[in-house]
C-alpha cells in the first residue's frame, strides 16, 4: 500500500513545492533584472487573492474543463508515484495538458483561441519527448513503475544522456519559460495578451496556477526518474536545472511557434531518438 501513500503525498505537497518554486523564480528573475522582486510567498498571495476574487466566466464549460486540468495534473502525479506504468502516465499527462487547451479554446475568443492553438502546438512539440523518455527509462531499467526505477541499480541518466539534454529543452516548454512561452503570457507584454488564460478570471485563473504548480512538481518527479539513485539527488538536479531555466528565461526572447516546433522536434529526434536508438542497437 506504500506506493499509494506516495501518490497521496504528491497530491498534497506538490502545490507547496510548485508555489515556492515560482516564488523563488520571481525573486531570482527580479535580481537578474536589477530589481528586488516580490516576497517568496507572493505566488500564494496571488493564489489566495484570485480565489477571493469574482470569477466571471464566458461560458459554463470552462470551469469544469479547468477543474479537469488541475485534477488530471494531480492524477498524473498520483498515478506516477503510486506505481502505474510510466508510459501510460505520459499519456495521462498529455490529457491533463489537453484540458487546458480545451478550456481556452472553448471560449471562442480571438486571443484565448490563439493561445489554445499555440498550446496545442507546444503539446505537439513536447509530447513525443515524454513518451520517448518514459520508453527510454523503461528500456534502461527494465522496470515499468516509479518505485521499480528507483530501486534499479543503474543510474538512468548515464545511459540516457541525450534524453537529459532534450529534457532541459522540453522543460522550458512545460515551465512556460522564454524562449518557449508562446502560449501564455509569462512575460507581460506579448502579442496574445495573456495567451490562453486571457479570458479566465478569479478562481479560474487560480486553477491554472495550481495546475502549473503540479506540473512543475511532476517535472521534478520526472527528473527523479532520470537520476534514480535517490529522490534527493533527483530533486537537487531538478533545482539546478530550474536555475538554469531561469537564466535562459532571462537571456532569451520568446521565439515563434514554427521554430518552437522545429527545434523541439529536431532535439527530440536527435538527442532522445538517437539515444533510444543507441540503446536498442547496443541491445541494452
Amino acid at each position, binding site marked *: 500500500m506504500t506506493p499509494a501513500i506516495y501518490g497521496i503525498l504528491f497530491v498534497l505537497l506538490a502545490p507547496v513545492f510548485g508555489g515556492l518554486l515560482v516564488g523563488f523564480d520571481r525573486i531570482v528573475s527580479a535580481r537578474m533584472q536589477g530589481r528586488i522582486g516580490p516576497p517568496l510567498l507572493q505566488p500564494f498571495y496571488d493564489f489566495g487573492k484570485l480565489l477571493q476574487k469574482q470569477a466571471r466566466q464566458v461560458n459554463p464549460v470552462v470551469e469544469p474543463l479547468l477543474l479537469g486540468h488541475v485534477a488530471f495534473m494531480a492524477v498524473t502525479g498520483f498515478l506516477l508515484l503510486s506505481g502505474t506504468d510510466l508510459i501510460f502516465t505520459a499519456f495521462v499527462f498529455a490529457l491533463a495538458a489537453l484540458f487546458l487547451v480545451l478550456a481556452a479554446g472553448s471560449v471562442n475568443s480571438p486571443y484565448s483561441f490563439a493561445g489554445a492553438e499555440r498550446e496545442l502546438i507546444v503539446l505537439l512539440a513536447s509530447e513525443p519527448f515524454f513518451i520517448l523518455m518514459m520508453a527510454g527509462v523503461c528500456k534502461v531499467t527494465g522496470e515499468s513503475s516509479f518505485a521499480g526505477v528507483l530501486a534499479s541499480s543503474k543510474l538512468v541518466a548515464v545511459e540516457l544522456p541525450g534524453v537529459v539534454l532534450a529534457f532541459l529543452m522540453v522543460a522550458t516548454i512545460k515551465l512556460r519559460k522564454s*524562449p518557449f512561452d508562446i502560449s501564455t503570457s509569462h512575460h*507581460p507584454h*506579448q502579442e496574445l495578451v495573456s495567451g490562453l488564460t486571457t479570458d479566465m478570471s478569479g478562481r479560474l485563473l487560480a486553477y491554472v496556477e495550481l495546475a502549473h504548480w503540479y506540473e512543475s512538481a511532476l517535472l521534478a518527479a520526472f527528473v527523479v526518474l532520470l537520476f534514480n539513485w535517490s529522490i534527493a539527488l533527483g530533486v537537487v538536479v531538478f533545482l539546478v536545472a530550474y536555475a538554469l531555466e531561469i537564466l535562459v528565461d532571462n537571456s*532569451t*526572447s520568446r521565439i515563434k511557434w514554427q521554430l518552437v516546433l522545429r527545434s523541439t522536434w529536431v532535439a527530440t529526434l536527435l538527442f532522445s531518438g538517437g539515444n533510444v536508438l543507441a540503446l536498442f542497437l547496443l541491445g541494452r
Partner: protein
Amino acid sequence: MKRTVVPFGPQHPVLPEPLVLDLILEDEKVLDAIPTIGYIHRGLEMMVERVEYTEMGFVVERICGICSFMHGMGYCVSLETIMNIEIPERAAWLRLIWAEISRIQSHLLWLGLGADAFGFENLFMHCWRMREQILDIFEKTTGGRIIHSVNRIGGVKRDMSDTELAAILVQLQDLGKQFKKTANVFGTDPSIAHRLGGVGVLSMEDARAVDCVGPMARASGIATDTRLIGANYYDRIELEPVVETAGDCLARVVVRMREIDQSIDIIRQAIDKMPKGEGMPLETKPRGNPMGEVFTRLEQPRGEVLYYVKANGTKNLERFRARTPTFANIPAMIKLVKGCELADVPNIILTIDPCISCTER
C-alpha cells in the same frame, strides 16, 4: 474560406498607446491589417483659439511626453522665425544639448519597450534602469522628469552651469559604456536575431515610396536626417547620419543604438564649442504679436517633425499644425504588417517607435 480576425488594440499590452488594427490571419500569417487611430485625438491644434501664442508652447510640449522638449523647442523656433528673433548663443547650445539628451532618453525607452514586446523582459528592465539616469539629469537641469517647460520664445528659461555640464558629460559617457553591454546583447543574442532579423523588411525603394522618416528611413539605407539642414546650430556640429542598409527590424534597432552613441558625441562637441561662463544672456524677449507663417523642420528621436504656424498679428495664432514623425511612418508600418507573422506584429509596430499621441495631437 474562414480566417481568424484578431482585434489588435486599442487596449493591448504590447501597445503602450491605443492603436487599432484588425488583423486577418491564416495560421498566424497576417493577410491583411485594417488600421485606425483616433483614441487620443484631443484637438490640440485648435487650442490656438483659446491659448495665447506666448502660452501655447506649454500646450505644444504636451503633444507628447517623450519628445516633450523637442516639441517645445520646435514651437519656439517657429515663432522666433516669424518674429525674426535671434536667440542668444548659449541658449541655442543648451537647446541642442537638451534635445540630444531627449533623443538618448527616447531611444533607451524604446529599446526597452521593443525588448519587452519580444519577450525579453530583462533587457527592458536594464534599458529603463539606464533611462532613469537620463531622467535624473533632466530633473536636475529642468525640474521635470517628463515635461520640462524650459523653452521660451526667444531662448530658454534655465541655464546649466559649466561644471554641471561637465558632470553631465561624464555621466553620459559612463552611460554610453554601460550601454555597450546592452547593445552587445541586442547585437549578438541569437533569439533576438531570430525575432528581429529579416522581419519587417522595408527596402530602400519601399521606404521612399511610403515617405517614411527618421530611423525608419535610415535603417533602409536612406541617409536622411533633418539635423543636416543645419538649423539650430547643428551646422556647427560634425554629424554623419547613422545609416543601416538591411531595412529589417534589427537594422532599426541598430540605428537607434548607434544614435545613442552619436548623441553623446554631439553633446560632447556642443559642450566643447559653446561659450563658457556664468550669467550669459539666455533669452531675447519677443515684442508685439507675430504676423506671418512658417514651416519648421526638426529631427526628433523618431524622425523629422514639421510645424506649420500661421500668425495674423493677434495674440492668438491663426493656425498651428504639427506633422509628427509617427504620422509619416504609419503608412510604412501598415505596409510591413501585411504578410508578417502575428508574433512579428508587435515588433514591427514598435520598430517604427510609434507615438500615437504625437500622431493624433
